[in-house]
């Protein structure tokens, strides 16, 4: 099993979700986050006082999937979240040791 973490532009969330659903991914966890990379923040001015915010709002998606489809999941996130501009985000893949469905006690792939 793999854990795939993707940081994407907020307005790309629906497209990514659709793309993953067609691959058979059964669930995901979404968090509103802030951060920075190469994309610069904006400058805000209130009565002449300038504040530059260097943290940009992003969406973090966490998906756990079977190892066999992990590469395709990464590819489809990459395709769906791409706009070609700086700030499109990043995708990380990690190994997962165990998964348990709390209700039934099922483990690993059948818990997903």
């Amino acid at each position, binding site marked *: 099993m793999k854990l795939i973490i993707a940081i994407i532009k907020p307005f790309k969330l629906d497209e990514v979700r659709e793309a993953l659903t067609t691959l058979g991914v059964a669930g995901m966890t979404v968090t509103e986050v802030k951060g920075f990379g190469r994309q610069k923040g904006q400058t805000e001015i209130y009565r*002449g006082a300038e504040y530059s915010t260097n943290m940009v709002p992003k969406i973090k998606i966490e998906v756990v999937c079977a190892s066999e489809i992990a590469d395709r999941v990464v590819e489809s996130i990459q395709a769906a979240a791409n706009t070609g501009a700086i700030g499109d985000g990043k995708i990380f893949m990690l190994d997962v040791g165990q998964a348990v469905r709390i209700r039934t006690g099922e483990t690993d792939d059948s818990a997903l």
Partner: protein
Amino acid sequence: MKHVTKLATGAAGLGLSLFAALPAWAQDAALQAPTAAAPAATVNKGDTAWMLTSTVLVMMMILPGLALFYGGLTRAKNMLSTMTQIGAAACLAMLIWVMYGYSVAFGPDVPGFASNFVSGLGKAFLKGVTPASQAATFTAGVEIPEYVFICFQMTFAAITAALVLGSVVERMKFSAVMAFTAVWLTIVYFPIAHMVWASSGLFFKAGALDFAGGTVVHINAGVSALVAALILGKRMGYPTTPMPPHSLTLTGVGTGLLWVGWFGFNAGSALEANGSAGLAMINTFVATASGGLFWMLAERVAGHKGSALGFCSGIVAGLVAVTPAAGNSGPFGAIVLGAIASVVCFYAVSVLKPKLGYDDALDAFGVHGIGGMIGAIGTAVVYAPSLGGPGAADYAIGPKLLVQIEAVATTIVWAAIGTIIAMFVAKALTGLRVSKEVEQEGLDLGEHGERAYN
């Protein structure tokens, strides 16, 4: 204009009276008994209804108007503290007003030189005032119930006390605010209100033009706010830590309430429902409209985007500037006045303040102090009939300009000295400033035990 035909009484005996001219102050006439042998004055129900309405309009400027305008500009952790300080200071002002404030400002004359600055305590605790008591307006023989006049003037004292707090929010103790307000009203507001609006007052006799309180309310509050902020010190982390307004939406709502309420403030200062009130009303529309747009224009010229906060700030700057000029200017003079005040205030808060380094948190000085001075001095210009103002045909700008500048300068000095005293009294009684921990955590939790947003 009817009200300009009323002459000041007792103008002799003072150097300043050299400048005495046709008076055009609003509010001044109250309590001046109509000149001898006048027919019995009547109370007009229309005037009374308008003044009752104006009074609650000014109340709306304080709560919720100013509370939201100021509250939105603070950080979320200080929202409740800002709103509560404004409301509580206004409440304290109301109570002090009926106890002795009204008497000190508009009570019976005291003998000698002191009558220039204060009245006697003969009306303390509203002694002798009944529903049948009357206060004069600007038309001989037309009066309004004294209780209505007392309430109308009460709201002015209350909002001025609240305006000062704009510079000291986010760090001053609630108890210190209350102590400061009590002392400040007593030694600063009541005497200045007397000087400008009572018939025995210094500026009144000199013929200073102040329709609705440019000197009494705005210069007074602005200068006091600056001095108080200097004594109190900067907020922790100012100016390096970002302190953006937490809700410009609420500031925008407050701005709208202020503007609507200001019609009571300005047009109500005519004390009658008549053409003078109408003039004050149209000026309160157009000067404000020009102020709002010119602030945004100044932002564009300075290379920024025209901002919502700039729009709101310009509206308030326009309102402040037109206050002394409301019934003393033609509509086009008011438009120019609003535009100039707005642009100058923009530079005061965005260029001058950062250079000087003082922490006037919500720009009470930058907008009310500076805007008030421009309005008060500019009123002498726009009053001229050649510029569309209501002045008499032989009106001369020069001498009136001197009177206005004298009134402004005296107010600045009086307010500064009085505020120093009031701040040190508050410091001795309460310690003035919250602890570092409370300031860090926010005054809402530290001072009131609540959060604005859960």
